[in-house]
């Protein structure tokens, strides 16, 4: 009972924060509260994932007292969601154009194999092997974009095909061999850098700042890379012409073309950029597992789509945000971690994530009704 009360209070606070300087829609007393809520959510769609995240945090701090609310636990959640969040950023770009990319996971693995194997097994300096891996990701994405635009096939089909193709290339190049942590450490430690742990408290303490609230937090550089990637893509989407074109192309491609946007070029750019981001995720993946495993990240595709959808980005394109996706990835992490700490079996984590997806898409549909 008390959970519910706090939850809705948190929800109201979330709304109030998302609503700077009360907009006109508030004083339309003749419209029902449901309608007003719909309008507010339409204007600030990212508020929903924030509310859900808050509710999750509140619920689990009661359900798993002491364990869930610890800085160390939050650090763990952050580390667990880093890779999915980066892939989610790539997936957000694609879904904003009303597409879907089933190949993000395999592009990541292929890029990690190219980086790791070229450096460790073939002895190529990491200064070359690393950019080569990034290039591999970029090329995979570019191929996706080319097929989607030039052959005019649905992205779902295209990336289903390339998922299989890139997977085969992965087996061919990797020979299904893993690269062990020790070998990686010896010949290409740079690739493991993203896994390096650091303690924010110690970091600031060395600079003479005693930030007590940071005590107990343990981050790795991969999380910093994730934040950087998200910041750059946020900037691209919101502050550049390319970003406007991405939204316009997904929103109404015919209108975008009539308005003078080269939608094909925009789409190819989006897929190529997404491929590149997957290759950055590959670097973080190597850091996380220490070596390279051609079998890693099997569920990454669907997890990235889940993060995007729960983060409020519409599968119909043109609506959504990077911040939403980061929060979406965190929601999945928080629910999985919280349910585990509450002593529930793994199956209930999957159950909860499934419910979240369906609820998120239902809310999206409902919000979108406002414009019709």
């Amino acid at each position: 009972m008390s959970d519910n009360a706090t939850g809705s209070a948190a929800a109201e606070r979330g709304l109030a924060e998302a609503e700077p300087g009360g907009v006109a829609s508030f004083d339309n007393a003749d419209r029902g509260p449901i309608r007003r809520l719909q309008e507010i959510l339409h204007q600030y769609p990212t508020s929903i994932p924030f509310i859900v995240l808050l509710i999750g945090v509140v619920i689990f701090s009661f359900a798993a007292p002491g364990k869930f609310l610890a800085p160390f636990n939050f650090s763990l959640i952050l580390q667990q969601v880093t890779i999915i969040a980066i892939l989610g950023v790539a997936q957000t770009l694609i879904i904003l154009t009303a597409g879907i990319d089933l190949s993000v996971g395999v592009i990541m693995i292929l890029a990690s194999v190219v980086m790791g194997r070229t450096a460790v097994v073939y002895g190529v300096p990491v200064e070359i092997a690393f950019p080569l891996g990034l290039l591999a990701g970029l090329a995979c994405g570019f191929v996706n974009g080319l097929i989607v635009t030039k052959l005019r096939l649905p992205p779902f089909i295209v990336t289903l095909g390339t998922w299989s193709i890139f997977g085969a290339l992965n087996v061919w190049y990797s020979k299904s061999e893993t690269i062990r942590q020790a070998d990686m450490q010896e010949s290409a430690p740079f690739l493991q850098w993203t896994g390096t742990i650091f303690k924010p408290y110690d970091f600031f303490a060395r600079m003479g700042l005693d930030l007590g609230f940071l005590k107990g937090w343990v981050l790795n550089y991969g999380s910093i890379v994730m934040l950087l990637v998200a910041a750059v893509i946020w900037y691209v989407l919101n502050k550049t012409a390319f970003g406007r074109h991405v939204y316009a192309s997904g929103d109404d491609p015919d209108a975008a073309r009539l308005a003078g946007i080269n939608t094909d070029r925009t789409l190819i750019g989006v897929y190529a950029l997404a491929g590149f981001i997957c290759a950055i995720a590959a670097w973080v993946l190597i850091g996380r597992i220490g070596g390279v495993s051609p079998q890693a990240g099997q569920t990454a595709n669907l997890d990235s789509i889940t993060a995007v959808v729960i983060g409020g980005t519409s599968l119909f394109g043109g609506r959504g945000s990077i911040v939403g996706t980061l929060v979406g990835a965190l929601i999945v992490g928080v629910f999985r971690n919280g349910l585990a700490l509450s002593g529930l079996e793994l199956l209930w984590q999957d159950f909860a994530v499934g419910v979240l997806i369906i609820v998120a898409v239902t809310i999206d549909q409902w919000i979108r009704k406002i414009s019709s």
Partner: protein
Amino acid sequence: MTHEAGTTHVAGYAPAAALAPDTMVVPALQARGLNKRYGRVVALDNADFDLMPNEILAVIGDNGAGKSTLIKALTGAVSPDHGEIWLNGEPVAFKSPIEARNLGIETVYQNLALSPALSIADNMFLGREKRREDFFGRMFRTLDKTYMQKMARQKLTELGLLTIQNINQPVETLSGGQRQGVAVARAAAFGSRVVIMDEPTAALGVKESRKVLETILRLKERGLPIVLISHNMPHVFEVADRIHIHRLGKRIAVINPKRHTMSDAVAIMTGAMAPPADEAA
């Protein structure tokens, strides 16, 4: 002359020169023998088109006569199966609307071509966004949002069409008429050679329609030729210099509104009256 170069291609077609105010004038936009089929539907059937410099040309015709298809073919939004197009006497073959726009042809399409989720300002500058002049603009391609918002607001105010409180409001939250206002303002602001409007007053009230007609007259004052597609005969007869009548995919007549009544125009349009001999196209 470029005019000669343009018209020598069209042997076999009676030049529309007789209808033009001045036979020596090069049409601003001209087309001969445009064809477009959608499956078994013939949307354009050897359609001709002439827009003279600095005139207001109205295009009228029944629903489905092919008016929208005609202007889409003229602006690169659809590619005609065959036919030729000249802009100021130069042959052109636009492969996309961008190419037409880059040559100064601005169009208000019937479906408005706005991005619903983007803001009014974003829509006004869609595809021609302005970057900041400073270091950030050059290095990181940062958009000059302040400038674009200011300009968008100014253009809309000039038009007097809609009172916008918030230029960053998504277009989908506007009424149909307000959206039309945004599309008209966009074309009026950026058109530098030809402005084409496909039913720009369809969703507008009496007062707002007046504003659009005034805008069209102002564009003419600025020296531009304008194509106005409309079903509203009083509007057409009020502003048009010539009226292009479209029927079953082709131009069947061009009439002078001063020498014909509205009922003549409607009769020709619906096939109830034969096109006047001297003005048949």
